[in-house]
């Protein structure tokens, strides 16, 4: 029972990070209909920005996270302009290749600029709370709460503001959206900015717990893809649910089946869900 509660908390922490990254991925998929392989690497850049802001410039943790958000928003928009915008009329496979290219570019750039070492963001919130035998650090608690906060903020933005609704409108029907006067270009840039901010948020939150290194993005992007497939490509509630499901399944699978089969369990869930509901839990835009 102790182990169960502990693993549940561990799974929630992991799931929160997965959710934030998967949300960005699913948003971009929603409007571009192409998986942005480079999204995990935006997360990596976000972690580096947070790291340097804190260690080189001695910025406060929250300010560093904010700075990472701003830098990443700019980077996201640049990526849309330079990589994806010129390909907007090209076949999906071209965008696909471009995304992979952007991913490799970012990783190689990180290696050249910052080297291959593992770095760790200094931990400020390192108090450990003990509830019975359950132990959780302050930082992990912050991850769980801040992720929920970010998700609520995103939801409010998409549902309650006009700009937000325009993103949803475009995700639902690109042609329809431009017919009613939505500027497709602006929405595309905006979506990239928001998705990148979410990635920066995830990175800033996870940074002090995990290590920062150039290939960290490749690890999380795999998980994020599984999540958006589970949740339904392009679906926002799907990404949230998928993120938590994957995080908790991994933790539980590792503790009750075998640590060797942790990923096997996670992918088994993926196969099961896809067998029962091939379009994902929250199917959207089935064609």
């Amino acid at each position: 029972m102790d182990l169960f509660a502990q693993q549940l908390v561990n799974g929630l922490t992991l799931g929160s990070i997965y959710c934030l990254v998967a949300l960005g991925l699913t948003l971009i998929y929603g409007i571009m209909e192409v998986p942005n392989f480079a999204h995990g690497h935006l997360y990596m850049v976000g972690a580096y920005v947070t790291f340097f802001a804190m260690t080189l410039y001695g910025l406060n943790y929250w300010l560093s996270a904010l700075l990472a958000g701003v830098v990443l928003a700019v980077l996201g928009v640049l990526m849309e302009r330079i990589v994806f915008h010129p390909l907007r009329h090209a076949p999906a496979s071209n965008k696909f290749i471009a995304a992979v290219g952007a991913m490799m570019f970012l990783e190689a750039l990180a290696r050249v600029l910052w080297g291959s070492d593992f770095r760790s963001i200094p931990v400020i919130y390192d108090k450990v709370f003990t509830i019975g035998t359950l132990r959780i650090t302050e930082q992990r608690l912050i991850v769980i709460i801040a992720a929920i906060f970010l998700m609520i903020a995103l939801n409010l933005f998409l549902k309650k503001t006009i700009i937000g609704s325009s993103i949803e409108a475009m995700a639902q029907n690109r042609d329809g959206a431009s017919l009613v006067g939505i500027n497709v270009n602006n929405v595309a840039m905006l979506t990239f900015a928001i998705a990148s901010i979410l990635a920066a948020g995830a990175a800033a939150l996870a940074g002090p717990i995990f290590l920062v290194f150039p290939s960290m993005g490749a690890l999380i992007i795999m998980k994020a893809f599984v999540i958006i497939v589970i949740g339904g490509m392009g679906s926002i509630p799907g990404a949230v649910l998928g993120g938590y499901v994957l995080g908790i399944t991994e933790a539980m699978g590792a503790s009750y089946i075998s640590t060797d089969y942790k990923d096997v369990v996670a992918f088994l869930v993926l196969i099961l869900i896809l067998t029962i509901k091939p379009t994902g839990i929250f199917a959207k835009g089935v064609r």
Partner: protein
Amino acid sequence: MLERRRYLVVFLVILLSLVLAASGCGTAKPAATNQGGSSTAAAKVVNIGYSGPLSGGAALYGQDTLNGLKMGVEEINHGGGITVAGQKYTLNLIALDDQYLPNMTATNARRLRTENKAPVIFTPHSGGVFAMQQFNQEEGFLIGAYTSEPKILETGNKLTYRIPPPYDGYPEPFSKAVMEKYGKRVALVPGTHQYAKDWTKVFVPVWEKLGGTVTGDFAVDYNKETDFYTYVSKALATKPDVLFVGGASKPTAMVVKQARELGFKGGFILMDQAKLEQMAQTVPMDQLNGAVGVRPVIQFDNPGAKKFVEAYKKFKNGEDPAWEQAWHYTAIKVVAKGMEKAGTVEDAAKIFEGMKQIFPLNANDWVAEIKGISAKGGMLGEAHGIMVIDGKYGPDMPITLKD
């Protein structure tokens, strides 16, 4: 029509594979540090090969090992190179990237041998050593093997020079030290790479022989997993007194840190791959209490080690060296002396024989006292362990080597 299209597809596939093959070669750029040539016009150049991970997850490790060689080569060349049978030579280090992949080490080695005529090729991983052992005797080059894997010398290969002490000397003294202080129950949380698996295989029987029990194996991929909480939580649920951990230093440090966060109060046994001094950059020393590992080279106070540490700091802007750099620096100098002794820069077998004759090396001039090179080809250097006690490095723990 269909026929023609099929030909087209086949043609495209071939074209694509050619392009890929070409780009694959392109990634292995020679990072030559050519210091011979113009200034010493009379001196000839002898190429020294290196193949190691210079990109990818183990790139830092690769760079560290390469830096040791670079420093050694630079020093030798600044001192006027080597004199072999009356002829002056300078060393030229050619480094190729193998991304930690044994098959790429083999490709690189062939290239270093045929194109550059390198008589010695260094590699810092056991997989690469095994791959080169398939053909190094026929092609006539010596492997400078930086791996503490004892198995590399059991293949009977006559041209393998193992540089660091083998790891099979560590488990017993390490186990005794933590067992005495913390208890007999150990949970295994090592990496999943081959090296960690082999280490674990050597460690477990030793621990059990000493009367200890293993509560379970919770191996985790140190390079692919982002969070170790899941594994560590499960390992701690088996109520161990000691955790057996090891992989690259930083991830290992994270495992230690997370174990402490989860309330673990026992000791740690570190595989020799993880370096205490590098881990201490991530976790505070008092969290490392009860961790036993290899004693850092910067801790040694013999004149040879001190001189090396000073020189390395100058070479790399104040950066502290680890054993990776120290042993590589030593190895390249041993090779250079061996060439002088043997009177050849071409015949690898004779060079190796020459190397064996330059010992013993004393600890006043060298990083450690080195007795010689064993019949199988292992360099007989010193090995020392150390335990962290009350947030400080404890007393020295000399290791008796089996080779």
